[in-house]
């Protein structure tokens, strides 16, 4: 995944769409956690140390899915 990080912001290049996105650190953490393997929402929250923030993580996931940076398993 091509990206540059400056401060608490990153820009990410989406190889699939050719689009560039500006993401904050929380969103990037989700993206990094999903790089190696597909995770359930609960497992993702555990990996992020955000077990009590399922709704917030789900919202970040939805945003990333809309940008075609992640996808749900079929």
């Amino acid at each position, binding site marked *: 995944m091509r990206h*540059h990080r*400056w*401060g608490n*912001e*990153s*820009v990410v*290049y989406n190889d699939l769409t*050719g689009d*560039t996105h*500006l993401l904050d650190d929380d969103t990037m953490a989700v993206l990094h956690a999903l790089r190696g393997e597909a995770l359930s929402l609960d497992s993702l929250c555990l990996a992020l140390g955000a077990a009590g923030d399922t709704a917030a993580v789900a919202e970040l996931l939805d945003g990333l899915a809309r940008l075609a940076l992640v996808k749900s398993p079929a």
Partner: protein
Amino acid sequence: MTTVAALSRPELGKRLRTTGIYLQTGQFITHVTTPFASVADAMHLLYADYPLLDAAPFADFHVGVAPPAGLRRWLRPQARFVYDGTHPFLPLPADQAFPMFEWGLNWCVSSRAHTYLILHAAVVEKHGRAAILPAPPGSGKSTLCAALVSRGWRLLSDELTLIRPADGQLVPLPRPISLKNGSIEVMRAYQPGIVMSTPVADTTKGTVAHVKAPSASVARCAELARAAWIIFPRYQAGAPTVLTPLSRGRAFMREAENGFNYSVMGPTGFDALGKVISQAESFDFSYSVLDEAIALFDGLAAAAP
């Protein structure tokens, strides 16, 4: 090295009407033909310092400004831009022949020179450090660029920022600075004796005129520069001179929007822009008084390590 200045105005006109000339601007060689005296006049005035090649084995662009065939030649005469034998644009009134040449040459570079990431931005340099000025039309970018150049900043480009992907270095393409409407009189007052083409009224951009690039900038066209500042200018009548820091992430996104070929370049463009953004500090800049703006830029250059 022969320059356009070696040709008298009649000789230049004859060459342009017949064999054409091979003109070097920055890294590009352009073969130019035209029967229009107004184009020859403006080229004689504004391109005197540019290398003229007797015969080039290769030209990056073959362009012309020619009258359309038929009755249009005499009835409300028009001019059309010719690129490699094609006509990519609708014709314009004949008195707009020289602005059309300038716009056409910009189009050639921005739509063809994908060796570089090309941003819609001016670039000026002092003490080896460059300021990129990306901005939409009406922001005062060209006026600010012309003013900086009139006060000793080197012109790399008024319109096209060329970024070398390998290292993010900026490649000069000094050509005439395009001024519009009120900016023409502003610069005449700001720089007495400024060399400028005859203003052409009623273009799609209003009244336009082109300012000659400084000879020293043309002579240093092979000297690359490193970006030190990315400054998004905004002229606003009565506004104080204010420089506001901008995060690199937001600057990246705004620069990408200003890219002529950012999408075409794909990941190479992303990486190239990342190099420039990492090297430079980014700011929003509002101003209304040119002297204050120049003083601020000079202060940045003086404070640079």
